[in-house]
């Protein structure tokens, strides 16, 4: 296997996620696109970790720890994000992001 296989797959998934964040109006769909982005980043971290491990077998798996921390932060982010979406839905009966324009100057 080439390292680039994994990195390019990560890049493709990242771009798909970025497209989703830009194109989607529904707030839950935007959060889902962010999850796709975070998963692609984790693939990159683990691929690089594997490369460094095979260069030096005694090396500790730092990349795995990073990936685990990203998974934990993503879980926290989804929890708070969906709570905010529910709050917005309760106040406005809609989660369309283009209607949230009060913070525009």
């Amino acid at each position: 296997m080439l390292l680039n296989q994994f990195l390019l797959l990560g890049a493709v998934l990242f771009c798909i996620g970025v497209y989703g964040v830009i194109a989607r109006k529904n707030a839950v769909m935007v959060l889902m696109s962010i999850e796709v982005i975070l998963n692609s980043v984790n693939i990159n971290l683990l691929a690089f970790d594997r490369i460094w491990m095979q260069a030096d077998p005694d090396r500790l798996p730092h990349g795995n720890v990073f990936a685990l921390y990203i998974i934990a932060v993503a879980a926290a982010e989804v929890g708070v994000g969906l709570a905010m979406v529910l709050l917005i839905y309760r106040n406005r009966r809609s989660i369309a992001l283009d209607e949230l324009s009060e913070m525009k100057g």
Partner: protein
Amino acid sequence: MVAASDIVVAQNIGFGLIALVMVVFALGVVSGSNVVHAALSLVMVMAGAAALYVLLAAEFVAVTQVLVYIGAVMVLFLFGVMLTRAKLGRDADLNNRTWYIGIPVAVLLLGVMAYSLIDSFEDTKIAADTAPVNTEDVSDLIFSAYLLPFWGLSFVLLAAVIGAIVLARKD
């Protein structure tokens, strides 16, 4: 004993299948017009990611991915879909009016990243027979070198739990 070249062929076929599934379902997440179908496509993307982690010999991360993402985060997403009363069928109103701007942005980003990746890691190979990552090593790292970030992460999770309750509670 299987020859190393056979392992490489099998790994490449596996990688190709997983990559195809992930890209197809990721496109389903960002372009489908049914919110529940998008959530279920996201399950397939995450399962594909877990399979790739196994291929990269990171077994503990793969198991964590299945537990946390497919188990917990997806349930949260489905609750979010249900509680915001999304249409259960097709919903034509999921995209912004200017959704097409996303296409050139994503293609440009992919072009730049693909060029720089191919330019810098031309044929760095991943060996087929490295030993899987030892979970003991992962825990040693978390509780020694990354102890302070671990504490920070604990506070982030605590704050997220309290924040989610405060935000979502009806009073």
